């Protein structure tokens, strides 16, 4: 394994630390980031920005997540779409301040599958949207979040 560290942009980032995040956008904009969808504060707005309003429920989308999570700061989820020709999958956590957690576009050569850890502020539905043949489909699963600890 080889690790390469590229800090070319770090100097710019440091210099810009006092500036609002928006000014750094041009750098990030080199790669697309759906600012509007990620900035949406509720599920409906996020779905709208993603062009997924009215997504049809589908049993072909599998969500594997624990029913109860001991700690909301790390909730493992595994998502798979069995819809033929799936081009993208998005994960939304309905009760989070910003529901959209991630969106993955798959090209020829990748399977429509992703496994990741997400943060959940409270018990919430996890909604997964998959796009196939230009249409959006959706599935959801609830994850209960326990925030325990002794306070010590």
């Amino acid at each position, binding site marked *: 394994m080889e*690790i390469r560290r590229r800090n070319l*942009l770090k100097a710019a*980032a440091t210099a810009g630390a006092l500036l609002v995040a928006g000014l750094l956008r041009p750098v*990030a904009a080199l790669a697309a980031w759906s600012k509007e969808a990620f900035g949406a504060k509720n599920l409906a707005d996020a779905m709208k920005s993603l062009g997924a309003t009215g997504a049809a429920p589908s049993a072909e989308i599998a969500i594997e997540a624990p029913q109860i999570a001991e700690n909301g700061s790390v909730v493992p989820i595994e998502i798979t779409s069995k819809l033929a020709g799936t081009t993208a999958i998005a994960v939304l956590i309905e009760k989070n301040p910003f529901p*959209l957690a991630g*969106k*993955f*576009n798959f090209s020829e050569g990748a399977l429509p599958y992703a496994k990741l*850890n997400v943060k959940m502020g409270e018990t919430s539905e996890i909604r997964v949207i998959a796009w196939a043949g230009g249409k959006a489909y959706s599935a959801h699963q609830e994850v209960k979040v326990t925030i325990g600890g002794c306070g010590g």
Partner: protein
Amino acid sequence: MAAGPMKMRAVQGAGFTDVRVLMSHPMETGQRKGPDGKLVPLHFIQNLTVKVNGKVVIEGETSQAVSRNPVFSFRLKGGAKGDKIEVSWLDNQGETNSTETAVA
């Protein structure tokens, strides 16, 4: 860990190649207070790119809701021993990192 090292493994499975990639990154939400009582600025990975032999196969966009020290697994169709896999990320502060490995 602060933003820094990455680690990746790509292993052939049944008809696909399993790629697991780990990244050191604080994934700050901008809502957490640091030891000084001040809010720690928003700092999270926004873009993730997976390439196989130089060709982009997955483009991911992520938010601050991805957990600290992100771990992602992806699956590639087929895949042969020795295929070169490259994963890179770019965060909202312009930091970036990448790693590559060959399918084992």
